[in-house]
């Protein structure tokens, strides 16, 4: 089929429009404000009827220049900036940044501080997965799943509000531990969440996972092969769904994750249902970690010595954390002053989303929405 090159192709499109008698192609703008783009991501689609031929994402609609801002704030002030990167895993972002600072200043964390970090991070992972599950259900049409997901999520938000006073942007961790100790109602609340989550997960599986409409909508959609996933630099559920068993908590353990035993779900085909299954099976594993952590939660100090001014010695420091969306790398270049010289956040959603153009070609608009839902990206984490 010969393609007449249209001169004013929207930017980013390579193949020209082909409008002959078999197919009638047109461009559709899934604008920055769209219910299924999880924030302000703009997709320009080249469609032939309902089939997607080419997808060009446009980013930058919430690019706030966090990396430039981080260069003009002191190290301690940057911690609260990392909350606003991927606001659904703010504890992970804080932890990544604090780990890099601890590596530079050689600050240790007491036993109780490490346990608090692991438990709070695993709770944040479950909280983020719950919101993801709800929004995935809503994008596929089952609006009640959104409300059910939030029902359990509120229990975890209460725990966070009790330990650090904020519901979403926590700013709880400091280099050496956290800024305050967890109150003694922390452990009973975590126990309540664990047993409620076991019941809720069965409900979720009957409601969505085993539902035949959901199975048909996600079976063999958006297949991402192993090589492509690695070549695009995907991480987290997207990479594991394509068969690569890499999880920072086990392959490059930080904090005290090597003391807990938990499984890493690995997919086979790399389709939408595999990505969905990865996250659904990660939640019981996080619950297992929480159960082990609650069993032997130590007493003692919750943080190590607090320094008056944090001045990182000259050099570059890199730390990795497994957030709910994948591998978050924090790379700090320090020149010895009170403010970092350059801070770069390696965001998981950025690389995960770059595979969208490969996966969505040939599917329908409804499948594009399913792929977007199972990719589970957060736009400010992409645009930074």
């Amino acid at each position, binding site marked *: 089929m010969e393609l007449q090159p249209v001169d004013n192709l929207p930017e980013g499109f390579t193949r020209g429009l082909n409008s002959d008698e078999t197919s009638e192609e047109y461009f*559709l703008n899934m604008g920055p404000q769209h219910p299924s783009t999880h924030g302000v991501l703009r997709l320009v689609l080249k469609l032939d009827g309902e089939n997607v031929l080419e997808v060009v994402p446009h980013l930058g609609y919430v690019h706030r220049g966090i990396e430039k801002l981080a260069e003009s704030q002191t190290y301690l002030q940057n911690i609260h900036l990392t909350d606003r990167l991927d606001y659904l895993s703010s504890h992970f972002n804080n932890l990544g940044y604090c780990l890099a600072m601890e590596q530079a200043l050689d600050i240790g964390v007491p036993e109780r501080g490490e346990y608090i970090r692991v438990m709070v991070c695993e709770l944040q992972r479950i909280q983020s997965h719950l919101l993801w599950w709800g929004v995935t*259900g809503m994008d596929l049409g089952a*609006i009640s799943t959104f*409300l059910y997901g939030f029902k359990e999520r509120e229990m975890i938000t209460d725990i966070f509000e009790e330990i650090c006073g904020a519901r979403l942007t926590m700013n709880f961790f400091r280099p050496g531990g956290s800024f305050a100790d967890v109150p003694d109602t922390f452990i009973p609340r975590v126990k309540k969440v664990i047993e409620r989550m076991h019941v809720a997960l069965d409900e979720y599986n009957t409601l969505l996972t085993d539902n035949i*409409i959901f199975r*048909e*909508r996600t079976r063999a959609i958006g297949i991402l092969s192993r090589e492509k996933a690695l070549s695009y630099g995907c991480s987290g559920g997207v990479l594991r769904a394509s068969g690569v068993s890499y999880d920072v908590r086990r392959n490059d353990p930080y904090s005290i994750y090597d003391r807990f035993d938990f499984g890493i779900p690995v997919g086979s085909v790399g389709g939408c249902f595999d990505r969905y299954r990865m996250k659904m099976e990660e939640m019981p594993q996080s619950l297992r970690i929480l159960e082990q952590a609650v069993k032997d939660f130590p007493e003692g100090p919750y943080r190590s010595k607090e320094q008056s001014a944090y001045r990182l010695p000259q050099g570059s420091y890199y730390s990795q954390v497994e957030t709910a969306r994948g591998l978050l790398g924090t790379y700090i270049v320090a020149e010895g002053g009170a403010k970092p010289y350059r801070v770069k956040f390696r965001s998981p959603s950025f690389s995960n989303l770059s595979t969208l153009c490969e996966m969505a070609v040939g599917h*329908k608009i*409804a499948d594009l929405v399913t792929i977007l839902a199972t990719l589970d990206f957060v736009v400010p984490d992409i645009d930074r």
Partner: protein
Amino acid sequence: MNQLPTEKIFPVHNSIGDLVRHLLPGSAEYVNGFLTIASLLLVVALLPVFLIWLERKVAAHFQARLGPMRVGYHGLLQSTADGLKLIFKEVLVPEGADRFVFFLAPILPASATFLVMTILPFDHHLQVADPAGGVLFALGISGLSILGILLAGWSSNNKYSLLGAMRSGAQMVSFEISLALIMLLIVMVTGTASLREIVLSQQGTILDWWIFKLPFLGFIAFMMYMISSTAELNRAPFDISEAESELTGGFATEYSGISFAMFFFAEFVNMFVSAGLAATFFLGGFLAPQFGIGPIDAAFDFIPGFVWFFCKTFLVIFLYMWFRWTFPRLRIDQLMYLEWKMLLPANLVLLMGAGFFLAMGWTL
């Protein structure tokens, strides 16, 4: 003086009928006609207001929340507030839209559902008109709402609404077939196409209702009727025409204010109508459920017929809402696969089964 059909509706009408006949002897025919149409219009106006409130409360309780609470007791005035606000909204016509067709489109679904309301048998004599081919009339008129949605999609000069309209056109036309075949089954089994006779043919105990009468064909026919009528209404798992998460507003993307309100109200009246048809065909319309145990049957008989009709219709409406708040959405090609490859053959097998029963002459 022979009883005018409308005078049998309510005794109170009789007094009005006498008064009118006394004052204007020649014009009784038209005044009573006007009265029935006015009362039906009142029902059609009040129904969506109540149904919207019911849908939001039922949805809320499905989702473990409370739904509208602050606008009147338990949010009863919520849908009146919505309606009043929509009336006073600025009506926008997108640039490049075809004005006449843009404003014609919302009228069609509303009028289509109102027309089908006229033949619904609310009670023994509470039926505005009882044409011999009632079933055909219902089928034919429901095609009008497809036209409304297609015109709306095309005329609002917006790619999303065009996509939504094309999808709903394909969906409603194809599910029209399985709806027609199920109605054909009922007509074949009852032998008549008039809705009132269909209801009367289900007299007797509860086992005489068509849902239970045919050994198990009736129940399968009822299930298939529910599937295809849900698709006909663009609701629940088949709401791909105004799919919230894919096409933002679907065919009604460019409609604001009163024109959107008409689509919104027509959708709910349409739901009541198709639930009413389901009650008429399968659940014995205005007949009270008789179990064969003396005192209960007598008590049920005492309750007037239209109360039973409304109960059964709201039971079916609850089913529709139950589907909507549980299932994810189907894709357009899966929808077509469901209709052409699953429902259509099942319908034909069902018809053959019913024909076999008739041929064998088993008592129906």
